[in-house]
C-alpha cells in the first residue's frame, strides 16, 4: 500500500519536473569568455539579448588573459578583456572594440579638506607609504583605507590601474559599493573607491591629477582612474550570425541605457 502511494508520488514529481522543458529550441548561441570585472555589464546585456531574440547566451568568467586566449583558439565567439590589447595580441590577428569605460572615483568624507590627489599619491596611500592625511595636504589624522572584498571587479579595477595589486593595506573590506560610501561618509579620515554611477552626495569625489571624474573625462581619457572594457574578436574569421547580431546590439546606442545601469560609461 505504502509502496503504491510512494510510486504515485514519484511518478507525479518526475512528470512535473519535465513539464516546461522542451520549448527552448536553440540551435544558435553566442559564447563569451573573459574578464570577471565585466560580469555585470555583459550579464545584463546577454540576458536582455537572450530574452529578445531567443538566441542563447553564455558567459565564462575566466579573466581577461584567458578570454583573449579563448578567442585566439576559437573556443568562444567574443572575448572580454578589461585591459587594452597588447601589441603582439593585435598582431596575432585580434581586434579590440571598446564596449564601455569603467571609471573609478576616489571618495573621501565631505569634512576632509583634501580635494585633489595625484595618481601616485593614491597608490602610496593605499600601499601604506602615506599613512597620515597631513602628508597628502590634509589635516592631521590617520588615513582609513576602505576597499572592496577580494574578487570584486571594482577592487580589481582600482588595484590594476593604480598598480597596487595585492599590496593594499586595507583597514576595511566591504562587500558593496553602498557600504563603502556609507563608511566613508561616517569617518572624517576615510578614503574609499566606488564606480562612477554609484557615487552620492554624502561623500566627496576627489579630482585625480586635477581632473574630475565625469562621463566625458572618462571617455576622452583625461581622467586616469579608468580602464576600458573591450570586446575581442578575430580579424580573419568572421563572427557567426548570432554572434554578429549580439555584437551589433551591444555596441549600438540602444544598449547604452543597460550599460549605464551596470555602473560603467558606454563608449558608443
Amino acid at each position: 500500500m505504502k509502496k503504491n502511494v510512494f510510486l504515485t508520488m514519484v511518478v507525479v514529481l518526475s512528470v512535473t519536473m519535465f513539464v516546461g522543458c522542451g520549448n527552448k529550441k536553440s540551435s544558435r548561441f553566442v559564447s563569451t569568455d573573459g574578464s570577471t570585472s565585466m560580469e555585470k555589464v555583459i550579464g545584463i546585456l546577454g540576458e536582455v539579448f537572450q530574452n529578445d531574440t531567443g538566441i542563447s547566451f553564455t558567459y565564462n568568467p575566466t579573466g581577461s588573459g584567458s578570454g583573449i586566449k579563448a578567442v585566439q583558439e576559437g573556443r568562444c565567439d567574443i572575448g572580454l578583456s578589461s585591459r587594452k590589447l597588447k601589441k603582439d595580441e593585435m598582431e596575432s590577428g585580434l581586434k579590440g572594440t571598446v564596449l564601455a569605460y569603467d571609471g573609478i572615483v576616489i571618495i573621501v568624507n565631505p569634512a576632509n579638506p583634501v580635494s585633489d590627489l595625484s595618481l601616485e599619491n593614491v597608490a602610496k596611500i593605499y600601499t601604506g607609504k602615506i599613512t597620515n592625511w597631513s602628508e597628502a595636504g590634509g589635516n592631521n589624522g590617520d588615513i582609513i583605507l576602505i576597499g572592496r572584498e577580494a574578487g570584486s571587479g571594482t577592487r580589481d579595477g582600482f588595484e590594476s590601474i593604480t598598480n597596487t595589486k595585492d599590496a593594499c593595506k586595507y583597514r576595511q573590506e566591504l562587500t558593496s559599493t553602498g557600504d563603502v560610501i556609507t563608511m566613508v561618509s561616517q569617518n572624517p579620515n576615510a578614503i574609499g573607491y566606488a564606480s562612477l554611477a554609484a557615487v552620492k552626495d554624502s561623500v566627496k569625489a576627489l579630482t585625480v591629477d586635477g581632473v574630475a571624474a565625469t562621463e566625458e573625462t572618462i571617455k576622452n581619457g583625461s581622467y586616469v582612474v579608468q580602464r576600458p572594457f573591450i570586446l575581442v574578436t578575430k580579424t580573419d574569421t568572421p563572427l557567426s550570425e548570432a554572434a554578429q547580431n549580439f555584437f551589433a546590439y551591444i555596441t549600438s546606442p540602444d544598449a547604452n541605457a543597460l550599460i549605464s545601469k551596470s555602473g560603467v560609461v558606454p563608449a558608443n
Partner: protein
Amino acid sequence: MAKKKKTSTEQVIRSTEPQGINLDHRKKKQILENIVHGIFLLLGLIAVGCVLLITVYLFISGIPAIHKIGIVDFLFGREWASTAADPKYGILPFILTSIYGTAGAVILGVPIGFMTSVYLSKIASPRVKSVMQSAVSLLAGIPSVVYGLVGMLVLVPGIRKVFNVPDGAGLLAAIIVLAIMILPSIIKMSVTALDAVPKEYEDASLALGATPIETYFRVSVPAAKSGIAAAVVLGVGRAIGEAMAVMMVAGNVPNMPDSLFQSVRFLTTTVASEMAYSSGLQRQALFSVALVLFMFIMLINATLNFFLKRDGNK
C-alpha cells in the same frame, strides 16, 4: 446434523452481509489513514533529506581543498590571501575571530540576558512582564541586516569617538552587535526554564525564612540550570552562525584578532563575501571554511542536546 449445519452457515452468511459492508468501510478508512500517514512521513523526510543533502554536499566539496592545501596549513595557517598571485589559504585568523567574537558576545550578553530572565520570570509584575516579553520577541524578529546597518551608522562611529581610535569597525563592534542579537534567544529560553520551576520549591524556601532574592538565586536558578545552560548554548550557536550584521561592522580584513579594535573577519563572513566571485581552489577552500563552521555548529548542537536531554530525564 447436515441440516443444522446448513442453517448455521446460512446464519453466518446472513450475519456477514452487514459485516462485509462494515469491513469494506473499515478497509477504505485504513487506506485513507495510510495515505495520510505516507504524506506526513514524506513531509517529515524533506527536513531530514535536506540536512543529509547539505552534510554530504559540504563534505564532498569541502574535503578536496583541505587535502590540497594540507590540513595543518589550512587550519593553522595565519595568512589568507585567496586572490593573490601566490595564494595563501590559512584560516586560523577566522577560527580565532569566530571564537573570540562568540566568547565576547557571551560574556556581554549572558549576564544581561540571565538577569533579565530572572527579573521577568520572578520579580516583574504581569503587565511589565508582558510588555518586556513582547519587546524581546520583537528584538528576535529584527532582520540581521538592520542590526548591521544600525551598527554601521551608530556603533562604529560611536566606538571611534569613545575610544579615540582611527576607525571603529572591528572586533569590538562585532561583539557588541552579536551580544544584542543573542539576547532574545537567551532570555526567552531562560524564562521558560525558570517559569517551569514548581512553585512549591520556592514556597518551601520562603517558609524557611529565605528572602525572595535568596530564593530565586539559591533555589529557582539551580532548579532551572539545565534550561539556562541550553539557552546559553543556543546563544552561542546564533552568534557563531551570524554573517550579515557582522560583515557590516567587523571590517572584514583577514587579520589575526590581536586587539579589540582590529579589523577582523569571521568564518561566516569569509564565505559570504568571497563566494560570489570565487573560482577554482579559492571556491573549494571556501567550502572547506564552511565545513569547519559546520563542524562548530554540530558541536554546539550536540552540547545543546546534551543539556536538553539531561533536563528531560530528570
